[in-house]
């Protein structure tokens, strides 16, 4: 503790000196002049944008009932978004340290999705709030800056003014005034000089204040982002555990209902056959044939179970080969279109999730969609693996709690990916899943 304190005590006078120096030299600092210019500019931006916003909102608000009002209000919101961009530029013009703008919701397809992006986006409303806050703030800044700069420059011009006045009025100026004037003029000039750093520093300070407002309202908030990220991770981890648990439960149930029962039957058949083999060889043979059939079916069931839990071709040959295999088993004609390089592998968990999305989607298509054609698409978009399953069936698929699609969504979200489905009644249906290929470093 002491060692940490001592140097800071020792440097204290230095720091005060440095601050003083900075203050005195502030009029020579280009940033101060840029700040002054930015304040003037900000006044116009603030008032004009507020006026336009008010016009949009009042006109749009009164027309809301005829729907066109929504478009006008939306225009106002978009105007604020444009203002936000200009303001970020204005702040970085004074202080070039970069500001990271917050992100906006993307427009989806369809009117409803567009409206949601426009009117339900928190960050778009933050832009609107900024315009409302910035209006009085920029006026205040402008007034303060103008007053102090005007005082400073005005006082510094006193000698000139006095000289002009003296030339104009000549002898009509009372003698005592002429006598006192040089001193007064000098005092005024010095006061003006002294006000110069005050004006420069004030401009700088006001822009700093404004920058803080911009950072608070228009920039990406790292803490909020981190909090959101932790929340997402917590959810995805619990989804992952959920997926794993239900998978194990399914395997246990399938084993219990299928292969285990068959093996019990097989054991019974075999012991009956061995009892009978001496007295009734024909009966024993029939039982043995039954036993062989039980064994065959048990093997077939185990094979299906293993394929469902850990498809071997996925491990051996990767995603594209496995998708080809699963598409080949689908009773509906299915083509696989992939832009992935042959032999290009992704992390196993990602390949596995993509495989199950496609396998489950194709099972659904075969079961419910009454489709005649189906397409599986697979591609890499930067560091995301995108798989899509399209069919020309009757549509109307939705994610319902506890349904197969919900299980898929859990699986995808467990890897920080996203899954969405577009399935209007009457079709076609498109299932779209994106998976980050570097799950541990994904944003």
């Amino acid at each position, binding site marked *: 503790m002491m060692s940490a304190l001592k140097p800071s005590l020792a440097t204290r006078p230095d720091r005060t000196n440095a601050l003083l120096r900075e203050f005195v030299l502030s009029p020579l600092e280009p940033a101060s002049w840029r700040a002054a210019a930015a304040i003037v500019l900000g006044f116009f931006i603030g008032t004009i944008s507020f006026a336009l916003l008010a016009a949009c909102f009042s006109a749009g608000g009164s027309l809301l009932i005829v729907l066109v009002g929504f478009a006008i209000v939306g225009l106002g919101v978009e105007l604020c978004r444009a203002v936000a961009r200009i303001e970020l530029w204005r702040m970085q013009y004074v202080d070039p340290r970069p500001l990271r703008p917050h992100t906006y919701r993307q427009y989806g397809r369809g009117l409803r999705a567009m409206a949601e992006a426009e009117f339900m986006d928190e960050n778009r409303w933050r832009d609107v709030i900024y315009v409302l806050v910035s209006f009085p703030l920029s006026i205040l800044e402008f007034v303060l800056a103008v007053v102090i700069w005007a005082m400073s420059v005005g006082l510094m011009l006193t000698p000139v003014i006095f000289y002009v006045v003296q030339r104009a009025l000549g002898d009509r100026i009372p003698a005592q005034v002429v006598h006192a004037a040089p001193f007064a003029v000098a005092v005024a000039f010095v006061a003006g000089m002294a006000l110069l750093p005050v004006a420069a520093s004030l401009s700088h300070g006001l822009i700093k204040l404004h920058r803080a407002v911009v950072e608070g309202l228009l920039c990406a908030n790292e803490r909020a982002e981190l909090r959101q990220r932790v929340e997402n991770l917590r959810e995805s981890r619990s989804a992952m555990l959920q997926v794993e648990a239900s998978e194990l439960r399914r395997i246990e149930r399938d084993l219990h209902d299928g292969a285990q029962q068959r093996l019990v039957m097989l054991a019974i058949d075999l012991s009956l056959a061995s009892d009978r083999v001496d007295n009734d060889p024909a009966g024993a043979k029939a039982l043995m044939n039954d036993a*062989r059939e039980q064994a065959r079916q048990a093997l077939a069931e185990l094979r299906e179970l293993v394929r469902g839990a850990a498809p*071997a071709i996925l491990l051996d040959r990767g995603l594209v080969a496995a998708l080809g295999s699963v598409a080949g088993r689908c009773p509906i*004609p299915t083509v696989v279109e992939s832009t992935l390089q042959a032999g290009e592998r992704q992390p196993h968990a990602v390949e596995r999730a993509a495989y199950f999305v496609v396998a489950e989607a194709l099972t659904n298509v075969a079961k419910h969609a009454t489709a005649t054609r189906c397409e599986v698409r697979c591609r890499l978009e930067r560091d995301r693996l995108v798989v899509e399953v399209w069919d020309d069936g009757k549509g109307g698929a939705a994610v319902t709690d506890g349904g197969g699609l919900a299980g898929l969504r859990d699986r995808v979200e467990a890897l920080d990916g996203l899954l969405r489905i577009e399935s209007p009644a009457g079709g076609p249906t498109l299932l779209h899943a994106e998976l980050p290929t570097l799950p541990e470093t994904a944003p």
Partner: protein
Amino acid sequence: MHDPFVDRRPIRVVIAEDSALIREGLTRLIEENGGSVVAKVGDAPSFVAAVLEHRPDVSVVDVRMPPTQRDEGLRAAIEARRLVPGTPVLVLSQYVERQYATELLAGGAGGVGYLLKDRVADIAEFMDALHRVAAGGTALDPDVVAQLMVLRRRDDRLATLTPREREVLAAMAEGRTNLGIAKALGITEGATEKHISSIFSKLDLAESETAHRRVLAVLAYLGD
């Protein structure tokens, strides 16, 4: 049940299978049915070495073997056929995939089999397949054929086949001879020949004599 055109002299077999239980079971099965097992190995490199040393009439290879327990057996079979061209190999697996069949058959020259391990339980069928492969023919699992026969295009010419023709096509793709097909489907050899020429003309396939060439033609059509 047995196809009289297939060579029936005792065959010399190499078995590559990492599970001792299955290895012994296969040995017993083959030796009780007139074959002789010349080598039993449990991993891929010693399988290739055994083929080089013994030049067997046919090898029986499991797909999964140490060290990675993936598709070593398949790769080893392809490697063995590269080193000893045409050495017949019957690959067994707990699961069958169309792609693996295509890879195995890509070397050409016949003498290739790819069956589900379960098929071993039907001894007559299995020995039949083993002899067929040893004689340079083909034995493709019905499961693989079923994967191939799935309609993949809407205007698929497969759809123009009658149900009986589809059955004949499937049996043909498995690698059966005309007599084998006739027996399996319970029809006469003459009827089989008629079905086959109808299939070939409907699918625009070149007619050919040997069963193996026929399999390749059918695969080329089905596997595109």
